[in-house]
């Protein structure tokens, strides 16, 4: 029995020691490994610029963990959400504190397409009133196609400028006896999500952005002909055995992390890979961006005249436990310095117009940021905006069914009925 009291005493001591971190800003986010080093570099800058300290914790199950922590009342000061949908839920439940006055005006003025970033971070609070809860920092561009320039030269292929050319190139590569695409949807419990990016990109390339917005809010049902058409556009690429490495049957089972490696095999298993701007971290070690691998904008149809739509995603920082330090950190994120620290490292894009683009560590990032700033239409990843049961559930599984051979209309009907089920 004495042992138990001893442990209890030790625990009390540990608790008291824990409360000595008064001026510490706790930050909880989804980044681990190299990404964690990057975000800590930014937070080091914050600590140097103010008299606050910080502690960052990353988790691969951020979405579940932040809910548990918030429900249990042990939330961090700042949470970094990878999905606006989750942040909106948390705001409605009263777990988020609105950002300081004037932040919305600042974002509007200083971010490219500022109003859309404000809208994406504004949710109804527990009282039903809209406030700005999320500050977008670090953006991903999704409408990219990755390729190996030397393989294109060897085969004499040109980078396509329009969707018509891309489709013609796909057919040409297949006619040459090679395989044009590497597509992998495997991602453990999240299997299917890479296909949602395809479908969203296709939505933006076959329909005006208003239709996309209606689709996201379900004003236009998921089984609308416009959506089914977009799914079938994706199917044109993914359901053709001649177009995909390993055949259409391998699409659902290939892991999205292993999929791009086919570009670098000798001889190459495929020539193109559609994926967001983060994917270079899964290229083989020592791959030089811009030399060994490069990317081009996933082009739009020339005939449809929809401009150059760009699909993206981003992380938003929200205050889950208000303190002076938390407010100071949000304030710090407005400075160009906070953006430039990460720009100089890797995998960071920003809509902040006040930063110096020369700071980007490699020209590839600068080009991506140009794609982002040149977009005539920018739309956020639809699956991240839809309710979790659809955007992180039936949409994913539906896409797996679709590449498995199920009819596009049937898949869309199923997804819509799952959406009806949660209304």
């Amino acid at each position, binding site marked *: *029995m004495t*042992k*138990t009291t001893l*442990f*209890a005493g*030790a*625990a*009390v001591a*540990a*608790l008291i020691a*824990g409360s000595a*971190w008064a001026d*510490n800003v*706790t*930050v*909880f986010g*989804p*980044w*681990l*490994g*190299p*990404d*964690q*080093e990057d975000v800590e570099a930014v937070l080091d800058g914050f600590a140097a610029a103010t008299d606050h300290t910080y*502690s960052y*914790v*990353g*988790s*691969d*199950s951020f979405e579940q*963990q932040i809910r*548990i*922590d918030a*429900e*249990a*009342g*042990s*939330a*961090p*000061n700042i949470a970094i959400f990878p999905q606006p949908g989750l942040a909106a839920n948390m705001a409605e439940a009263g777990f988020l504190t609105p950002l300081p006055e004037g932040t919305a005006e600042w974002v509007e003025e200083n971010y490219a397409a500022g109003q859309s970033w404000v809208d994406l971070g504004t949710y109804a609070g527990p009282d039903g009133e809209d406030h700005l809860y999320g500050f977008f920092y670090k953006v991903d561009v999704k409408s990219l196609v990755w390729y190996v320039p*030397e*393989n294109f*030269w*060897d*085969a004499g292929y040109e980078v396509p400028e329009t969707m018509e050319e891309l489709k013609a190139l796909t057919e040409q590569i297949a006619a040459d006896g*090679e395989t044009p695409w590497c597509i992998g949807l495997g991602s*453990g419990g999240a299997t299917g999500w890479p296909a949602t990016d395809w479908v969203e990109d296709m939505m933006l390339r076959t329909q005006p952005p208003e239709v996309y917005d209606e689709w996201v809010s379900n004003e236009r049902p998921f089984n609308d002909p416009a959506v089914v058409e977009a799914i079938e556009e994706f199917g044109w690429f993914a359901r053709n055995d001649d177009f995909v490495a390993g055949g259409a049957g391998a699409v659902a089972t290939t*892991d999205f*992390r*292993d999929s791009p*490696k086919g570009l670098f*095999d*000798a*001889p*190459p298993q495929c020539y193109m890979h559609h994926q967001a701007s983060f994917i270079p*971290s*899964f290229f*083989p*070690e020592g791959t030089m961006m811009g*030399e060994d691998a490069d990317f081009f904008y996933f082009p739009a149809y020339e005939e449809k005249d929809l401009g150059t739509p760009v699909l993206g995603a981003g992380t938003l920082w929200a205050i889950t436990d208000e303190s002076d330090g938390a407010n100071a950190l949000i304030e710090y994120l407005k400075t160009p310095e906070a953006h430039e620290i990460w720009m100089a490292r890797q995998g960071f894009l920003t809509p902040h117009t006040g930063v110096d683009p020369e700071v980007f560590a490699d020209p590839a990032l600068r080009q991506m940021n140009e794609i982002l700033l040149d977009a005539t239409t920018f739309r956020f990843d639809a699956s991240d905006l839809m309710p979790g049961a659809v955007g992180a559930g039936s949409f994913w599984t539906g896409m797996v069914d679709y590449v498995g051979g199920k009819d596009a209309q049937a898949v869309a009907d199923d997804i819509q009925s799952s959406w009806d089920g949660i209304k």
Partner: protein
Amino acid sequence: MSDMHYGPSGVAGQKAILTWAVHLSVGLLVLLWVVPTLGLLVSSFRTADQISSTGWWKAPFAAEQVLQVRTADPGTQVQEGDLYVIEGQLLDETQAEKIASWGTSSRDVAAYQPGDVAEVRGGGTITVGEDGAYRMENTEPFEGGRGQRVFITAMVPPELTLENYRYMLFDDSNVNGMSRAFFNTLTVSIPATVIPILVAAFAAYALAWMEFPGRALLVAVIVGLLVVPLQLALIPLLKLHLGIGIGKGYLGVWLAHTGFGLPLAIYLLRNYMAGLPRDIIENARVDGATEYQIFVRIILPLSFPALASFAIFQFLWTWNDLLVAKVFLIDATGQTTVMTAQIVELMGTRGGNWEILATAAFVSILVPLLVFFFMQKYLVRGLLAGSVK
């Protein structure tokens, strides 16, 4: 062959066949269990690129591979007469020793034999020898920032690396996190093993040897608790902890592990204690021993195998636990992370670093293995104790 000595009765022959069958099936089962572990062990010595390109069973053999290498960049060219020349060695950075064939286009990676001369796209020629020495010649200066890409087909000897272990255990970016996580895990596991044993031993004695009304019902309820999944209790229990002021921390995780471990502990120990000879305990009672004296002097020493076997179970379970630690222990300060959580973090944001996972598995398995080998003789006895009287 030995059954010949037993004569033609057949009984001995049947027995021998049975023994063989048992041995064979045990051997197969062991193989079934060992193969994945072996694969994990081999993978822990391979690089990420190797893991994603070939299976672990191919690791010990030399394999013919197509490698992509580069000549030196045009900045190193020298002028010989009216020729511009770049010379060098392609195999320096690879493990291969002899080139079987080579090519310059990804469309035909084995177009040329060693010694052949090929055109270079930017102008000029290149030739590659069997030993990897190459020579590029051109009448114009070579231009561009990078060397020519050359594909070489060669036998590559097996290559194993300790880099994963170095990264796990000694890399500057990890060493603090790993050692802290190691001691945190011990801080969780040891009390979370000792407390339930202590409580369960008392309870088991009372349920086995003390007469009181409702005892059988109580035993039934405890056995019933064995089937309740702990996931059901996570959030309510955490809310309770926060409500009574324990919060997230070591005390909370010890209590949670104790609660989740007790039904099995009481059940195992009660069955064992109930099987102890009644005479000894009754003699002690007649001699005037108190219940406490009987428990400490007689029951505890006799139950040691059962206590030890449960200790092993509980230690392994708490050592490997991620779920309970994430809910009850790890908070936003990150000071209380455990090994399992640390390993998940090493996997990276999108969880692709399999080589780290394989290595981490073997690092984290060490302590449980030590515990197991020190206490395994009790494990078998204790296991049998629960079922056979």
